[in-house]
């Protein structure tokens, strides 16, 4: 019952009776280690993020794809096959919805979680340019969307009898819409004061992309069309939908893609600013 203990030295922790090493420290400021450069750091973060897909993202990527496939199958009940404004909108909207789900919604949640849990400190105490962290993650999330978008577009074309001729345009639509939406997602995730709010913003953004992207624009009242024009995913949807025409209006396709690119540049710059703010002002 009773015991007399003397404070023991833990076996796991070797003692350090001797103070610091005897040799005198070199005078003057210590040399600075080199900082990581933008592109190698971006590549390292991109690679690390892609590897996360195997562990954590696969189920969600399936969900993103199945959601879009489900919407197309459901809409097939009211939209008949064959080239029409409605069928183009459904297929293009559902395909870009995969991008919105992953790049906007999931990235907002990722950054929201990272900020709330203090994970941003890890990057903030490494000599890495903020742009590399944001762009690396955004590029990875945009890449996650490629298989789902391609599958959705291909199945959609089969389901609605649309030509596959210009599906290659996805090679431009996915990265550009991906840049615009992932920048927006990163801003939401990094600026939201609470993790729950980041999740909410991501979900709302995706819902907007769903509702305003999948239905043909001409069916909306004027006010809703304005809102639709404000959504960056709209321009990805429009660019893709135009290529289903027998003779696509390439000028307007390019214009739509240019808007995506422009929004992408602005939103990624904003997300880099948001990252700096979130990483240091706490």
């Amino acid at each position: 019952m009773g015991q007399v203990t003397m404070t023991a030295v833990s076996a796991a922790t070797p003692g350090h009776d001797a103070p610091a090493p005897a040799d005198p420290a070199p005078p003057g400021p210590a040399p600075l280690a080199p900082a990581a450069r933008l592109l190698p750091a971006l590549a390292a973060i991109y690679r690390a993020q892609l590897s996360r897909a195997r562990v954590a993202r696969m189920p969600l990527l399936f969900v993103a794809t199945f959601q879009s496939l489900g919407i197309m199958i459901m809409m097939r009940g009211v939209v008949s096959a064959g080239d029409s404004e409605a069928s183009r909108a459904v297929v293009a909207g559902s395909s870009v919805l995969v991008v919105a789900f992953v790049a906007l919604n999931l990235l907002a949640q990722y950054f929201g979680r990272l900020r709330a849990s203090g994970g941003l400190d890890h990057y903030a105490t490494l000599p890495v340019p903020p742009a590399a962290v944001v762009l690396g993650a955004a590029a990875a999330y945009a890449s996650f969307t490629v298989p789902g978008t391609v599958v959705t577009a291909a199945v959609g074309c089969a389901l609605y009898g649309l030509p596959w001729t210009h599906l290659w345009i996805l090679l431009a639509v996915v990265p550009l819409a991906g840049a615009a939406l992932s920048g927006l997602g990163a801003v939401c995730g990094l600026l939201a004061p609470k993790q729950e709010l980041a999740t909410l913003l991501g979900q709302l953004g995706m819902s907007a992309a769903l509702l305003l992207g999948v239905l043909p624009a001409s069916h909306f009242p004027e006010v809703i069309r304005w809102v639709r024009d404000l959504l960056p995913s709209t321009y990805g949807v429009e660019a893709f939908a135009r290529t289903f025409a027998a003779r696509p209006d390439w000028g307007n396709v390019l214009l739509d893609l240019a808007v995506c690119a422009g929004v992408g540049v602005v939103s990624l710059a904003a997300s880099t600013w948001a990252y700096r703010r979130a990483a240091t002002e706490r």
Partner: protein
Amino acid sequence: MSTTQSAAVAAPAPPAETTANAVTVRGLTRAYRSRRGAPVLANRGIDLDVRRGEIFGLLGPNGAGKSTLVRQLTGLLRPDSGTVDVLGHDLVRQPSLAPRLLAHLGQESSALDELTVALAAETTGRLRGLSRARARAERDAVLAELDLEPIAARPLAKLSGGQRRLACFAAALVGERPLLVLDEPTTGMDPVARRAVWAAVDRRRAERGTTVVLVTHNVIEAETVLDRVAVIDEGRVIACDTPGGLKARVDGAVRLDLVWRDAPPADLPVIAALLPRAAVNGRRWTLRTDPDEARELVAAITAGPAFAALDDFSLSTPSLEDVYLVLGGRQHGWAK
């Protein structure tokens, strides 16, 4: 404020010679806003001198202000006033230099959780500016050093808390820095992993003169691994000395812990007389006294009727926790 200054004077550190110190902190003050909106001072005029090649501890209970201090040392937080000099560089003016001078092991692993142990170490090295080949070579060396090779291909999220902590420590070592700031590095580790951590720290100090600032609230660890320790309470440094030097301040005193089965028998005169002197924590009473009185008390309690109410008792030499309490620390929340 006066306490801080007296503590700084009492510390055996030589007067600030920036170049001989790895870290020099003067008058560091930082407030944060509480939920009610009133500013709370997390650090109130902290002075510190960490010599190069030293393993220096920041010891204190939860909420003492250690993490706020570390965030300012690592450039994550800007102080309201005061200076932070790390290896000759002013980090208040240029916080962005911190990542090029020091490696920081924070308490959170969420940025690395979904990576494998190997990729977490390699990526962190790449982000410290290493070339790919160099990052891989250092990754392999550190994983071998810490015996992490068997779990190198497993994601951190699937590991136990101690293994995950060790993997984060490995990442902190890739891309060598002259200063390591480690925030409770051994939390949750088994003795083998703990030994690996201290061996790795020792090796870097012996071979490269690496300085270590270690945050802990584990007093046993503080007593055994640190060269010097600053005891922090309510945002101030209340003492700074070697662990032995600190303990010498309460020399001659011993600690008597009494744990009661249920309610203490306060109707007994010997027990009633102890109550005003005891620090009561649930069923545990802690008394500080000289060895002779302690012996008499143990004899009186174990021989008398109080013995039946006693669940356990122990008599021990002073620890850093006792030093902390004797110095006037008011907080609880120590890990033992």
